[in-house]
């Protein structure tokens, strides 16, 4: 007998995998982008199941609302026909084979040996508050334990801004006479 939780998981997982396959099989990049958005929504749903409410919200706002919209803009801005005609890469079969073998080993062990293979580290005395007040907990850990990465992230965003401006802007001060 399947519980509601399980039914929900299966539904989301199947949709996520199917649309992920569509992402890499569609020829039209706009279709790929739309299927990727579907996958992202399903993953956000699974985050909710895992009681990561804050990340589910961020997933929808940042990934779907920000990154994917940027993708769609660029797809419309750039005539992809010319970009896709060219062969810029050798097909890197050896990487694909290596990764697939590695993943198969992993699938195999996880399915075969079940949970025993994972041997999770002993549970710390459990804050089951983790499930009730996700955003607050996350904020406290982020600003106390991970203060430094947070600060480095601001540099990263600065670099991204500079990069986007100098690479994509039409005219820069050094161009003119």
């Amino acid at each position, binding site marked *: 007998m399947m519980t509601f939780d399980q039914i929900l998981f299966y539904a989301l997982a199947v949709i996520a995998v199917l649309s992920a396959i569509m992402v890499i099989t569609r020829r039209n990049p706009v279709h790929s982008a739309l299927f990727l958005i579907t996958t992202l929504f399903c993953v956000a749903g699974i985050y909710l199941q895992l009681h990561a409410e804050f990340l589910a919200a961020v997933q929808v706002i940042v990934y779907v609302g920000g990154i994917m919209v940027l993708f769609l803009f660029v797809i419309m801005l750039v005539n992809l026909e010319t970009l896709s005609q060219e062969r810029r890469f050798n097909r890197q079969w050896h990487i694909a084979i290596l990764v697939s073998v590695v993943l198969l080993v992993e699938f*195999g*062990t996880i399915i075969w040996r079940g949970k025993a*293979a*994972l*041997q999770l580290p002993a549970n710390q005395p459990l804050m089951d508050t983790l499930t009730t007040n996700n955003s607050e907990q996350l904020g406290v850990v982020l600003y106390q*334990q991970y203060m430094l990465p947070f600060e480095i992230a601001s540099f*990263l965003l600065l670099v991204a801004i500079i990069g986007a401006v100098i*690479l994509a802007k039409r005219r820069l001060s*050094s161009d003119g006479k």
Partner: protein
Amino acid sequence: MFNQYFQPNDILIIYPELLLALFAMGVMIIDLFLDRAWKVLNAFTALVGIAYAAYALYRLKSNALNLSGYNHAILNDSFAIYFQFVFLIATALVILISARYLSIEGENRGDYYALILLSLIGMNFMVMGIDLITLYIALELMAVSEYILVGYLRTNRQSNEAAMKFFLLGAFSSGILLYGISLLYGISGSTDLRVIAQRLAERPSHDPIALVAVVTLTAGLLFKIGGVPFHQWLPDAYEGAPSTITTFISVAPKAASFALILRIFIVGLKPLETSWVPVLSVVCVLTMTLGNITAISQSNIKRLLAYSSIAHAGYLLLGLIAGNEYGITGIAIYFLVYAFMNIGIWTLVVAMRRKDLIGDQIQDMAGMIYKNPGAAVLMLVFLLSLAGIPPTAGFIGKYYLFASVIQTHHYVLAVIAVLNAAISLYYYFRVVVVMFMSEKTDEEKMTLSPGVLTSLAVTLVFTLLIGIYPEPFIRFAQNSLSLFQ
């Protein structure tokens, strides 16, 4: 009142990085007020920033050791400080040669230096970090700045394509690396490398999940240093990028990635040594051999040096496989030496760039001894050093690395490494033959700006000095042994 957020001490530990950030932003603001003719001042601003940061770092080194900060996210031990000095030296040399090159290319703007300084901040945090989150975001700060710098000549098609390829493969490798990190987090329940090492030691030795984590992690990291079979991006990126940026990414980010690898493998994954040493040994042999053999058939000097740099990554892996004090000292001294000899040779390649001549074919160097005898002799010294022939500095580096694997009884590896060093002699001397034996094809002389001359003088002096009188430099490199504590 802010005690749970950070300690006053934390700010002191990252003082050099704060200075670099200040100067990175300063150089962009000052750039707004400079006329075209005065853009060279941007390079001065950046150099002052680096000098100031180096001084701050020196103060930090003499004050205290093993400073841990930000809730144990970073550990500024003497290993980290040593590598930060190497990055500062390499970056300063690159900035010296950049001003003239950028004005020839017509892209002389302050943001170039700002990006170099920001990527330097990323590298500094990469060697300091002891927490996977800090390490990863620092790695990305370095990498994203590099993608932009490789594509910096935005009207140059080759630079665009190099950036595209570098970016796609870099992002892909980050994805693979992250997958390994996520599994490592899952089986250890922590992102702190020291805790991970403890938890891994408690697990059974033949653990399939841990093996998958190690393999994906290794694959992701090998991309960053250009190890075979993940090296394809490297020659294209080196060829297409602006030459000064090639000089930069062939030294500093490579040293940073290697320091990161050392920290992850020696501190975090030590308990799994039996599973990663064989993998890395195979990669090491392939990287050395393929790099050297492919370099033989290159006619473009940039590509030749790119393959030679792949081969050098192979030699450096020897030190990690040995994993003993000799090996780590070897890697540390090798990067100091590599910073001088490699920047020296790339500076000459940059100087061959004239208004109408790209100057990156080996044939363009024909008869260089008649046109620019000084440059030809310098080139000879740097090539000898890359080949590892005494009394140049390259010999000291190779000696330590090769000796380290002999100490740990990896005799086969040592023999293959020596054979490879012999192969590399062939293509380095091919360049020498073209320079000294061929007739000159044109009368174009090199353009040597004061910055290029300074850079050449510094690299030449140190390439010879480390080779002739290595003791103080080896003592300096032994700082990196704090990695084992």
